[in-house]
């Protein structure tokens, strides 16, 4: 590891301007985490146009802050309202709300904040040590490896994400297809442009993301909202006692480690990590029946895990240029817009961006710890803002923002069309996440695959005979076939025991 570059990164982060953007980022993150509705991916999509005018390092520090800040905020609604503000806080609901009912909401929030901080910090240290090594290994990757890796990323996101797998795969395939719209970079031939000049350069990633994530979610929330005002439980005594701390320290440690490893995997990330950590705690507990009735470990483990995972999912993005989940896909797009191509060369070519982002997380998490322990009352009060007031504001930011990208009214309408598509997808059970991620990776997959075919002189077996790409293809095949095998196995066992696990499993996601 280049210690000088690492230290330079700290100098950069402590510049007042970057500190300010870091604070803005984590504040927005906390805020949207507390408010059910918009998730971090949608928020980053909506705010992308505003980052155009900001220095790239500051912009990316801010956007990263939104992601990990949202993990802190999501806890608050889970504990106080039994409404997970973020998908990654769903399991926190079980024990968090049970604790709140016993008048221990403060303890739950305090432990969650400490666990979040510890989990994130352990994960940043891991990121600091591991990322440069991964980047160095990845420097040897050629087009075949990239084609296989990107395709694996798309497949994993589609299969591990929430909802029906077949539908996620369809969404991902659509994303790959949409990525081909415009002029072919190899031959210059126009594809799916329908002789439109505006489509000749392809569809802008930001506009698709703003439409599907931003407008789609705004419209969807407009319908889902029922004007119910939730009254949060009272919060007293946020500082956890020594006993609570002792009781949850093991869970925090294990949750952090589980979160770190699951975050690195493509398709993993915060949601999966929180579920796995909760399950692991329950499994090793002496009396597991405490879980669900207010076990402090049931709050500590998933909250440590989701923050650790949110942090470590930056590793594949910053070192391989492969976003591990939809939110990372948004950051990938943001970096491209700012003129930075994430990949193994990033640590050498743009150490300011690489170390700036990583080191900003150390500071961002300290800010979040301060925001979520002494200032938690402030965020509880935000829960009383009616969603009806925020809706038109987000709608306006989206429309005015998308116009300012290219000063084009055409873009507004493209975004509205994708907003309608995103809304209809949600109504019919398709998640837009895999589509956006596949769209981001689409041109990388195609270009790498075609370059590989040139290298292999038209012989596709070349993918399999190269060691790294061969191994990746093998994983690809296993991932693709696994669900079928599991289904067969489950069919056999369910006949035997008449257990019906699938329904419950669907809900936990």
């Amino acid at each position, binding site marked *: 590891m280049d210690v000088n570059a690492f230290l330079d990164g700290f100098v950069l982060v402590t510049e007042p301007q970057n500190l300010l953007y870091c604070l803005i980022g984590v504040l927005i993150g906390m805020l949207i985490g507390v408010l059910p509705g918009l998730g971090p991916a949608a928020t980053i999509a909506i705010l992308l146009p505003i980052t155009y005018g900001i220095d790239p390092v500051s912009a990316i520090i801010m956007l990263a802050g939104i992601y990990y800040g949202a993990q802190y905020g999501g806890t608050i609604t889970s504990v106080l309202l039994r409404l997970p503000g973020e998908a990654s806080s769903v399991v926190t609901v079980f024990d968090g709300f049970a604790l709140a009912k016993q008048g221990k909401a403060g303890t739950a929030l305090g432990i969650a904040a400490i666990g979040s901080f510890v989990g994130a910090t352990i994960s940043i240290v891991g990121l600091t040590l591991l990322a440069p090594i991964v980047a160095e290994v990845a420097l040897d990757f050629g087009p075949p490896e990239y084609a296989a890796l990107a395709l694996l990323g798309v497949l994993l996101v589609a299969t591990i994400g929430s909802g029906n797998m077949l539908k996620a795969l*369809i969404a991902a395939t659509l994303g790959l297809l949409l990525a081909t719209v415009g002029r072919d970079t190899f031959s210059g031939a126009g594809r799916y442009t329908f002789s439109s000049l505006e489509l000749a350069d392809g569809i802008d990633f930001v506009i698709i993301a703003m439409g599907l994530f931003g407008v789609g979610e705004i*419209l*969807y929330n407009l319908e889902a909202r029922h004007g119910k005002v939730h009254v949060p439980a009272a919060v007293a005594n946020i500082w956890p006692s020594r006993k609570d701390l002792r009781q949850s320290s093991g869970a925090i440690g294990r949750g952090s480690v589980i979160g770190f490893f699951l975050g690195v995997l493509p398709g993993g990330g915060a949601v999966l990590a929180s579920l796995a950590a909760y399950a692991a705690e329950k499994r090793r507990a002496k009396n597991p029946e405490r879980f669900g009735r207010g076990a402090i470990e049931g709050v500590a483990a998933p909250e440590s895990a989701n923050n650790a995972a949110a942090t470590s999912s930056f590793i594949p993005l910053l070192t391989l240029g492969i976003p591990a989940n939809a939110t990372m896909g948004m950051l990938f797009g943001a970096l491209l817009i700012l003129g930075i191509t994430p990949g193994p060369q990033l640590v050498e070519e743009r150490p300011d961006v690489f170390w700036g982002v990583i080191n900003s997380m150390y500071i961002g998490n300290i800010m979040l710890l301060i925001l979520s322990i002494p200032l938690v009352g402030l965020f509880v009060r935000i829960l009383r803002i*009616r969603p009806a007031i925020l809706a038109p504001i987000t709608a306006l930011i989206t429309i005015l923002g998308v116009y300012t990208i290219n000063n084009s009214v055409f873009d507004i309408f493209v975004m509205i069309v994708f907003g309608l598509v995103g809304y209809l997808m949600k*109504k019919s059970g398709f998640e837009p996440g895999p589509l956006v991620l596949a769209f981001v990776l689409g041109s990388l997959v195609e270009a790498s695959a075609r370059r590989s075919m040139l290298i292999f002189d038209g012989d596709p077996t070349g993918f399999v005979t190269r060691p790294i790409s061969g191994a990746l293809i093998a994983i690809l095949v296993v991932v693709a076939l696994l669900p079928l095998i599991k289904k067969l196995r489950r069919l056999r066992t369910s006949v035997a025991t008449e257990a019906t696990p699938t329904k419950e499993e669907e809900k936990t996601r």
Partner: protein
Amino acid sequence: MSDQRDDRAATGTDPGEPDILAELEAEIARELAEERPPAGGPAYQVVGALVALALGLGGAILAYGYGLGSLREPGPGLWPFIVSVVLVGLSVALLIVGRHLTDSEAFTRSSLQPAVGLLTFVGLGALMPLIGFEIPSVLLCAIWLRFLGGESWRSTAVISVATTAAFYILFIILLRTPLPHLF
């Protein structure tokens, strides 16, 4: 990977312990379901799959026209053709096995709200180049607050004007973007 999937399955489905966790989970699911519209029937699933199928078929036919080339020299149409064929295959599979999925949501009376919202988006996009963004923005806010959000006239007026003023300051004065504006 398989371990993690097992873990997740285990959170709610350990046989032999039909415990408080499962109950709580079911309770949460019920509560969330109350706030969601009823699931759309098989028709929703079939339409979804058919739309995907149509896109796949259309994509494949157009891609074929762009020229597939050969594996040695792939034409511009080869990659989109492959992707489209995969899309067709997946859509057919969904058409066969997905008829009874319950992950769709029926359109109800409250679906009119997003429809109105969408119209205001279109209206703003159409009017902005003609008369600037200020008046359409105030109108959009007013419709969303008063008719979609059920706010009082007074707070509608205050919030609409204040929001638009804030965006004027942000986009015109601070960021100096060439957003069409009247004032």
